[in-house]
Structure formats: structure tokens, C-alpha cells
């Protein structure tokens, strides 16, 4: 168990910038967030710097309460940052960015709409072409094997099915940027595996950038090109780990020695941050 790989061999330091690949799709520069809640001032984020390339799958790993959801809310423009600057495609974000697709931890399906109608709300709000959107909605639902359930109400679906519908909803308008806040957090391990595969399949075709929040180290490694490790609150980027595994990812890769090395490395980082304490 002491055979942890030296961090330097696999990871890049947190100050890593994307000088080599030109302009970033998403660029976060010195972003902080302070909440003035009932318990006074809460510094949720210390200056965070992060650049994300177009088409990249980036996972955010961090202990509970470190500000992951807050960072996503800032990226979506639903919350304003206290300081710093966020740009997407070079445009500064200071209002909700309708180009992003968002999946929340809860599926937030609308009870009064069938699965298909829940996906279609996206088109209705955006006033996009109905027939075209419907065809795409059905295609997305069938990609996650829900075609037989397109007219079922959410109350008739299981938790995993509901979350799949909410992912389809976020994907309907082909968002260049997907923001996902622990979308599989509430699901059992088996459903989770399936949904990870579904997600990778859905992302593969379009050149989509994914910002994926998770608590699970294996999940982050399995899905991502890079894993961003955040410190406990107030959160900032502690380390970025490049995941050098071939795509398409297969479930069997989780037994790969390289995969296990990544798990050790990330676990080691959290131990050094005092997130895991063993006796």
C-alpha cells in the first residue's frame, strides 16, 4: 500500500495553463465567492483559476462544502462571482448563460410532464423548431433506452430513469458546455455505472465541453480527461491530474493498473489535505 506513485510523475501543478492549445473554452481567473448568509460572511471560494479546453471532460473532486456547486453556479451565470472573471468563448459571464446545459444533483423533472415533454421544455422555452426538437428528443431518449417510456410521467419512472431524462433535457439544444452537479450522486452503484457509460456515449459525438462535479474518485477518473482536486472550504484548486486512459472508456479499465494508480494518487492528495483521516 506504500507503493503510491510520486505525484509529479502523473499530475501537473495547479498553476497549469493551456498555453500549448491556444484559447480556452472556459476560463476562470481569480474567481472568489463570498456569501453573506445568516451565519455572517462565508468565504465559499478562494481565488480559483482554471482553464478548460473545448471538448474536454473535466471533473471537479472535492470534499463536501468546498464550493463545487458554487463554482458551477458561477459558471452557469446563475450566481454572480464576488470577484474575478469567468469567460466562456471569450465572452464574460454575468447573466445566466443559455448556451450551457445543466444537470443538477436532483433530477428536477416537472411532475406534470411526460418524459418526452420534460425534454421538450428546453425547446419550448427557447422557442426552437418543434418537429426538429422532438425528433432529437426521441433520439436522445432512445440512446439511454427510454424510448418505451417517453409518455410516462416522472412518478412512473425510477430514480435512474429520471436522471437520464434530465440529462437528455440538458442535451436537447446541443449545448457546447455541459455543467453537471453530482448527477449520479443519488443512484445505486449499478445504475451509476450504466449512466456513466450513457453519458460518455452522449458526449462522444458532439464536441462538447463537460464540467462534471463528483464525490467519487473512480467516477472522476473513469469519465475525465482531467481531474481537478479542490481543497476543503474555502475551496481553491489544489491539483490537476491528467487522466491518460484511451477512449472509448470501458468498464474493464477500472481494473487497469494505471487506473488504480490514479485512484491511489487522488486518495493520497485527499489524505494530505486532511480530508481522509485513518487511525
Amino acid at each position, binding site marked *: 500500500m506504500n507503493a503510491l506513485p510520486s505525484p509529479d510523475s502523473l499530475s501537473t501543478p495547479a498553476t497549469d495553463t493551456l498555453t500549448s492549445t491556444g484559447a480556452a473554452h472556459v476560463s476562470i481567473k481569480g474567481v472568489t465567492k463570498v456569501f453573506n448568509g445568516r451565519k455572517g460572511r462565508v468565504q465559499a471560494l478562494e481565488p480559483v483559476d482554471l482553464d478548460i479546453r473545448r471538448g474536454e471532460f473535466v471533473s471537479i473532486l472535492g470534499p463536501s462544502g468546498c464550493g463545487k456547486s458554487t463554482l458551477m453556479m458561477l459558471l452557469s451565470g446563475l450566481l454572480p462571482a464576488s470577484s474575478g472573471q469567468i469567460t466562456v468563448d471569450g465572452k464574460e459571464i454575468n447573466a445566466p448563460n443559455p448556451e450551457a446545459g445543466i444537470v443538477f444533483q436532483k433530477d428536477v423533472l416537472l411532475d*406534470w410532464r411526460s418524459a418526452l415533454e420534460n425534454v421538450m421544455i428546453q425547446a419550448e422555452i427557447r422557442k426552437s423548431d418543434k418537429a426538429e426538437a422532438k425528433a432529437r428528443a426521441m433520439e436522445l431518449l432512445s440512446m439511454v433506452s427510454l424510448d418505451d417510456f417517453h409518455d410516462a410521467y416522472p412518478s412512473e419512472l425510477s430514480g435512474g430513469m429520471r436522471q437520464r431524462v434530465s440529462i437528455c433535457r440538458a442535451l436537447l439544444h446541443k449545448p457546447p458546455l455541459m455543467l453537471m452537479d453530482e448527477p449520479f450522486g443519488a443512484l445505486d452503484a449499478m445504475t451509476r455505472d450504466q449512466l456513466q457509460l450513457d453519458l460518455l456515449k452522449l458526449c462522444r459525438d458532439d464536441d462538447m465541453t463537460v464540467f462534471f462535479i463528483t464525490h467519487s474518485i473512480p467516477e472522476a477518473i473513469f469519465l475525465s480527461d482531467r481531474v481537478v482536486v479542490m481543497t476543503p472550504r474555502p475551496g481553491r484548486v489544489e491539483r490537476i491530474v491528467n487522466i491518460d486512459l484511451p477512449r472509448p472508456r470501458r468498464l474493464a479499465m477500472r481494473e487497469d493498473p494505471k487506473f488504480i494508480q490514479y485512484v491511489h494518487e487522488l486518495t493520497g492528495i485527499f489524505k494530505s489535505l486532511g480530508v481522509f483521516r485513518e487511525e
Partner: protein
Amino acid sequence: MAMASATEPQQDGTRALAPVLKVLNGVPLAVWTLIGLLLFWEAYVRLANVPPFILPAPSAIAQEFRAYGHRLFPNALVTMFEVVFGFTCAVLIGVPLAVAIVYSKFIQKGVYPLIVASQTIPKVAIAPLLLTWFGYGMTPKIVIVILLSFFPIVINSVMGLRSASDEMIHLARSMGASAWQTFWKFRLPHALPSIFAGLKLATALSVIGAIVAEFIGADKGLGYLILIAGSNFDVARQFAAIICIALIGMCFFFTLEMVERFAIPWRNKSDVSGEA
């Protein structure tokens, strides 16, 4: 073959009875209970010789309906009109007011507390006042029906409209929904079950409101009939009027239930699948 022919007559027998059994089976259990109670009531009155000015038998009440129906019916129509018209006004005032309370800080802080506080005043206490203002016609009755039924409508609608989760509102905003779209496609449908719960409470209250208002001062309506029959010790007539009131209340409630089924189809669908 022999066995088949032997069982055939038996099958024919049950087959002949089948439609009858089916109809009997289709009658809800509560109806059987009601029939049982009526039979017991009838038997008790006859066997114990209860005088009709204390408790008339169901058959006597039925006789009253036959003899007095021509007077009951127009008065029932009056009461029904007061109830339905007052209730409709209460909905038309209550639901928009709830929307205003949820959307306007001013109305929420400046008006809502007064509405809540005003509920400590018993409506019956202001009924005589309404009579002096609006006379003995239908207007004061309708006003009382509105006053009684509008409060649960407002309260439940406000609760429903407020209960939209942060995530739901975030979702709407992330799609670029306008304020109108957020209301129409998210908040309002989300609030419908709660609004209907308020409407159902209001149906019962609006019937009470109409009857009480007629007690206090009227020259028609079922409440008025009950009062007159009471002063004449005509108990059978009072019972007949009470049954009319109950029927009005039930029809009203079930009509609303039908509308709810139509307006909230996602609810019953899961109910039905749960039962099956």
C-alpha cells in the same frame, strides 16, 4: 363431453345472474352502508313510535319531497346560485391575489398580513352589517360566500406558488425563461395540486356561507326554508331541505374533483397504476 353438458345448465344459471351481480358489485360499499342506516332508521321510528315532529321516518321525508318538491326546487336553485357564483368570484379574486402576493414584495408585506389577521373576525358577526349595506337580496349572501371561501384559496395558492424549488427556478433561468414563462410553465403547474386542495376546502365553506347568510335574513333559499319549517315544527321539511343542501355540496365537490382530474392528469395516472 358428458361433463361439459353436465356443467352447462349451471353455467347458464350464473350467466343469467351475472349482469345483476355485476351491477351490485359496482355499487360502492358506502352506498350499502347508507341503505343499511336508512333501513335501521325507518325500523326504529316505526317500532319505537317516535312522533314525526321529533324524528320523521325516511319514508315520511321521501313523502315530503314528493308533496313539497315544487317549493324546494326553486329555493334550492337560489342557494345553488349563491354558492356557485360566490365561489367563482372567490376563485377569480383569490388566485390572482395569491399570484400578486408571491410576486410583489409590497403586497406580501403590506396586504397579506392584514388578510391573515382579518380571518380572526367570524364572518357570521359581520353578516347583519352586510344586510344593512346590501339589502335582503342575493348580494349579501354572495359576499359572505366569497368572504368565507376565498381565504383557503388564497392560502393554498400562495403555498403552492412558493413551493417551487430553487433548482426548478434555476433550471428555468438557465434555459433563458422569461418571467412569464417561469410562471406559466413552472410555478403555476407546480402549484396546481395545492390550489385544488384550497378549492376543495372552499366548496364546503361556500355552502356553509350561503346557508348562514340565509338564516340571518332572506326570503328565499334553503336556509330560509329551514328557518320557516323550524318555527312550524315541521321536521320532515327541515330534513328535506338539509338533504338538498347535502346534495348541492356533493355535486359541487364532485364536479370540482372531475375538473381536477382533467387539470392534473399526472396525479391520477400514478394513483391508478398504484391501485392496479
